[in-house]
């Protein structure tokens, strides 16, 4: 029990203080319950990302099995339709047997991977299920760690991301492996290599087509530009062949862009014509990195922005008041910190639709339990704080902001609704 000078002065106070241990805890207010439910609705990404990963694995495995099976079937058909010797037939069939053996192994492995991923999906549903008004502080702490790991992964701080998720036991709740896959592509693009990005496009062909993505087209355009940039007779020849093979198929949907880029054949990379010059800028590679990140987030059902930024913006706005920027603002307000102030500056202020008063002295809310009292100089403090001050100073009150002195009996109660 806390030693509190006001309440523990006599035995009665001790009695009443220990009373709550006997009475059952009051029911949880429904507003807090609905607030919790609402906040869980923000967790789409948490459930969606591992599912997309799972779905991708299932599809890839299935495609692979289907291919193997149909190739076995057609090999048998081939053997039956042609006039091979017995020896050849036996050796072909034997190799088919070992091929099917291999397929069984692959099936086993594939199923193990799929099960692990399904488990991860379940772990996340269970995590949402575990949120409760009683453990909400702890749950929110975990949430903050998840948000921080998400931020680090998007910024490619992989080492800290792994360390943090391992040390806080949240590995099942974060998507480190998925971001590692993205990192490979991003690193390659930064080295001006489109191969892994193209491989990624091939892997996700159906999904990208469905969302009408033109990322692959942009990669192809960049490869074409690089051939033109090389500026040799051989590279021009290659560029034309490349355009025929890889760019022409996009003509139906992206004719304007296609023409624009292919026309660079007539200009060199040293062109001064701004419309073409921009295509040769090295910055175009950064654009590709950015586009890849967007496609990647979309594919997995992630927000484009780090979760941290989204939550910070909303939270800073809700906390932002003109008072937070004043000198001598209480240190308890995050906006008293210079770093938080800087982030909050361009954001909107919070809106209040009714008064909320906080005692300058005790920082406690001033409400019907602890009503505001007005000093003759117009300064307002809470009844509790003023009473305590009066008891210690023979009934005298000194205004902490102006030094004004008066008596406890001079105070007037204010009614603020």
């Amino acid at each position, binding site marked *: 029990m806390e030693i509190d000078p006001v309440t523990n002065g006599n035995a009665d106070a001790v009695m009443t203080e220990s009373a709550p241990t006997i009475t059952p805890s009051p029911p949880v207010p429904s507003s807090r319950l609905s607030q919790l439910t609402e906040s869980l609705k*923000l967790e789409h990404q948490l459930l969606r990302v591992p599912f997309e990963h799972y779905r991708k694995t299932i599809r890839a495995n299935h495609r692979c099995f289907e291919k193997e099976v149909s190739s076995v079937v057609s090999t048998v058909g081939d053997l039956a339709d042609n006039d091979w010797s017995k020896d050849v037939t036996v050796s072909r069939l034997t190799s088919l047997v070992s091929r099917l053996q291999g397929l069984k192994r692959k099936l086993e492995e594939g199923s193990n991977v799929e099960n692990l991923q399904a488990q991860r999906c379940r772990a996340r549903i269970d995590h949402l299920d575990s949120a409760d008004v009683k453990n909400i502080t702890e749950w929110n702490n975990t949430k903050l760690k998840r948000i921080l790991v998400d931020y680090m992964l998007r910024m490619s701080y992989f080492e*800290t991301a792994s360390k943090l998720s391992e040390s806080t036991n949240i590995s099942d709740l974060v998507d480190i492996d998925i971001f590692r896959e993205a990192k490979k592509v991003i690193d390659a693009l930064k080295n001006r290599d489109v191969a892994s990005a193209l491989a990624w496009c091939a892997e996700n062909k159906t999904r990208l087509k469905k969302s009408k993505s033109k990322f692959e087209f942009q990669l192809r355009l960049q490869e074409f530009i690089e051939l033109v940039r090389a500026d040799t007779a051989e590279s021009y020849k290659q560029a034309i062949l490349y355009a025929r093979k890889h760019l022409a198929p996009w003509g139906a949907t992206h004719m304007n862009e296609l023409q624009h880029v292919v026309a660079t054949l007539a200009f060199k990379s040293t062109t001064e014509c701004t419309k073409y010059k921009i295509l040769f800028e090295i910055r175009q590679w950064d654009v590709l990195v950015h586009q890849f990140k967007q496609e990647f987030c979309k594919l997995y059902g992630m927000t484009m922005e780090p979760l941290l930024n989204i939550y910070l913006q909303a*939270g800073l706005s809700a906390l932002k008041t003109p008072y937070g920027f004043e000198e001598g603002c209480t240190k308890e307000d995050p906006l008293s910190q210079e770093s938080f102030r800087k982030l909050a500056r361009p954001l909107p202020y919070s809106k209040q639709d009714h008064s909320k008063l906080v005692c300058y002295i005790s920082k406690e809310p001033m409400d019907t339990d602890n009503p505001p009292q007005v000093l003759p100089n117009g300064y307002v403090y809470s009844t509790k704080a003023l009473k305590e001050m009066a008891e210690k100073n023979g009934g005298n009150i000194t205004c902490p902001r102006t030094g004004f002195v008066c008596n406890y009996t001079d105070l007037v109660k204010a009614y603020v609704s």
Partner: protein
Amino acid sequence: MDLKSIKDAFDRVANKQKLSYSKTHEIVQMLSQEIDKALSILQEASPFDHRSILADVKKMFTEISPVNQLEAAEKELNVALTKYPKVLEKQLNTDISKAYRNNVEFDTHIVNQIIANFFYRQGMFDIGDCFVAETGESECSTRKSFKEMYQILEAMKGRDLEPALNWAVSNSDKLKQVRSDLELKLRSLHFLEIAEGKNSQEAINYARKHIAVFADSLPETQKLVCSLLWNKNLVKSPYSEFLSPALWDNAVKELTRQYCNLLGESSESPLSITITAGTQTLPVLLKYINVMANKKLDLQNMEQLPVAVALPKEYQFHSVFVCPVSKEQSSDDNPPMMMSCGHVLCKQTINRMSKNGSKSSFKCPYCPTDVDISRCRQLHF
């Protein structure tokens, strides 16, 4: 939100996946059995029979039509795979970045510093150091202080009050200024430790030397010293509260609070306050955006949030006065004014009610009092 429908939809996916897997397995098994069978017949058969045997296998394969079977299994699985994300979209907020202001870009250095500071103040020094190294940020100025704080707290966990007392004594002036009773809390714990473990005489000596100075807090010191009468039987005494581990928890809490405060930091991590506030704000904003979907809502440029968000009272750091009549927030130009009856309105409202001072009195909108304008007083919350 209905978590159960999400669970059910996922169970369907997982079941269909198992089904599809066992179907594939079954087919592969069947194919290899057929080929095995054919091979063993081939071993026995005369050199020219193998064509008819192969034709049989081919016929068998056409009958099984494994590829079609696989496709059928996949189709069923696909239905479940398409359904699940739709259930997620229905139950959850698909895109929380709808409430995000795209034209505001955070400075990465500032965000990184906030994160590093967060790790240090939570006592996660390894992670903090790793983060600082990986991001290449300059070292956090608060690291050393938080290290000291955690050393003090660690010692308290082992019931060693020495470092805590040393810190409290060397900062006693500042602690007094903010009316913290940390030193008394620590001395009391120390006294109880002595009283429990050694003889009463030593405890009395300790009380004379260290506790008597807290004459301001007479009730506690009386109780403390009085608890000596029950000596080793505190459980059955009126002072059993002194055995409660909450005393230690409170001392730890108070020390953390005061330590952070003297550092110029809040007692709860500002990052977790902000993120928790964000968690409560986002649903309100998203709901508002959804309702306003058809109206032009310039979220990108507004000066104030379009809706009020009720944050918990511990996140209420300043007094906000909203005039109950005009619903406007008070400001320097439009301060809160108290009428003679004690009700408070903002200045503009009072001006309006008195027709800009042309009337010398008006009726309070909340009680039957006739308000004399000259007696309205400006308030400072």
